[in-house]
């Protein structure tokens, strides 16, 4: 799983979940945040993305969630070119992803149950089809007794678990998590990591951005390191 793949390798497979080639990103009039990033995440792989603050981890994730577009290079998701997508094509890609945001992005007016159910409700599926999954997921992250509570009444760690439950409840093909264990204690961090690993064993591709090098090392997953907007290397 090379971090710096050759061009020929990039074009060989259509089954990779993520393929970046020469990707760069910079804000208008500002310095480049990402430079010449080449990356392949094969389907069913598990990666940590580490690096110091400001290295570009969150920006790279925002490109993968299609919240931003690369200013250079090509981006493929699920075997399709995703660099120049029209707005109407975005939902189809995003429904195959589960995203854990660093700032959680929970909806304060909704209960914990409704926050987790949000991606399922947005698909238009009937409540009977997913209500049990939502309850099970909330139980799994330790919030089974807080289903009716709203995010403002939850602690930072509880919000983080809620955000993770929402990201994984649809059993997505790709999970992108930005510091998903940053607000929880070590025991809960380990439990959440096991959740990601369980999903990974079922075939989900996982990319976790974290500054916690120890957690990354303990996970046994491959570790990608971003420094100064460039992928500096990979440690298996």
């Amino acid at each position, binding site marked *: 799983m090379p971090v710096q793949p050759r061009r020929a390798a990039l074009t060989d497979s259509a089954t990779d979940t993520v393929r970046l080639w020469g990707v760069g990103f910079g804000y208008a009039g500002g310095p480049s945040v990402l430079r010449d990033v080449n990356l392949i995440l094969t389907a069913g792989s598990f990666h940590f993305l580490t690096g110091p603050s400001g290295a570009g981890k969150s920006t790279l994730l925002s490109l993968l*969630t299609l*919240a931003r577009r690369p200013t250079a290079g090509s981006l493929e998701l699920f075997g399709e070119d995703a660099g120049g997508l029209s*707005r*109407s094509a*975005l*939902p189809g890609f*995003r*429904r195959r992803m589960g*995203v854990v*945001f660093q700032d959680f*992005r*929970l*909806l*304060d*007016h*909704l*209960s914990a*149950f*409704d926050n987790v*159910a*949000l*991606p399922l*409700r*947005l*698909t238009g599926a009937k409540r009977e089809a997913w209500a049990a999954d939502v309850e099970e997921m909330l139980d799994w992250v330790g919030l089974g007794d807080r*289903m*009716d509570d709203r995010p403002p009444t939850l602690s930072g760690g509880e919000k983080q678990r809620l955000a993770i439950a*929402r990201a994984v409840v649809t059993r997505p093909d790709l999970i992108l998590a930005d510091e998903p264990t940053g607000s929880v204690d070590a025991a809960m961090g380990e439990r959440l990591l096991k959740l990601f690993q369980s999903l990974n064993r079922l075939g989900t591709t996982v990319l976790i951005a974290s500054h916690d090098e120890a957690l990354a090392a303990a996970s046994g997953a491959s570790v990608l390191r971003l420094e100064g907007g460039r992928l500096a290397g990979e440690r298996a």
Partner: protein
Amino acid sequence: MIGRWMERRAPILPRDGGGEPWLAAVIAVLCFLACLSAVGAVAADRAAHGWARQLRSEATVQVRPRVDETGAEAAARAAQTLAGVTGVEEAEAMDRQTAEALLRPWVGDAVLPDLPLPHLVTVRLDPDAPASPVSLSRALAEAGVDATVDDHSLWRGEVERSAALITALAVAAFLLTAGGAGAAIVYATQAGMAAQRTVIETLSLNGASDGRIAGLYQTRYALLAAGAGAVGAAVAMALTAGLRFLGGADGVTPALPVAWSDVLMLSPCPLVAATVALVAARMTALARLRGGR
């Protein structure tokens, strides 16, 4: 248990508790005004058509007597002649007392006895096949009566033009109020989307399409407008029913003969309000989402 069920049925978009009641009040008032415009247009049109129909079924003949006869004799001879024309139901010479009674409201009693009055014959025409002014004039000429026939077409044209103008103004008022309601919804949608920017981003990143997000706004404002429209229409219906009840079939004034059917006519108002709101909210939301604002 019910509390939990209610919680879990919460709308995806947060409520704008501060602004929505005021928006509903504005839409209710606009719907009330639109309903009054519609009733006014229909009643004015009904009055004008009634007057025009009445004018169309009558004609007035002014008779000039010969040297050897009085005005009353000439009018009686003209009435007799006209009564035999096809398309005439009745022709009657107007006596001086009747003519004075018509003029009294305008000139008063003082000058009436000294006023020279025209010798008139009132003709009631068959409403299904009225005699034409030409046939009346020809019949009078053949009988040797010097007379002028007035079929009221000038006055009828004025009435019909006035009615058309009132109807056009009422339709314009209706469209303006509908436009005002639409503009209020556009403003509310824009303000709501600006205030809920992070919510919209979250929905979008969780797989919601632009159409789905616009659908949330269109549903919200269509329901709000339907409720407000129902309130506005209910008040207008009560007012219209009151006018019909007080004024009877002729209306409180002859210019506005309100009918019971006018009350029912207002019942689609909530649907119209909801449709205007739905279209305005959806177009605004889609434009804003596609514009990336």
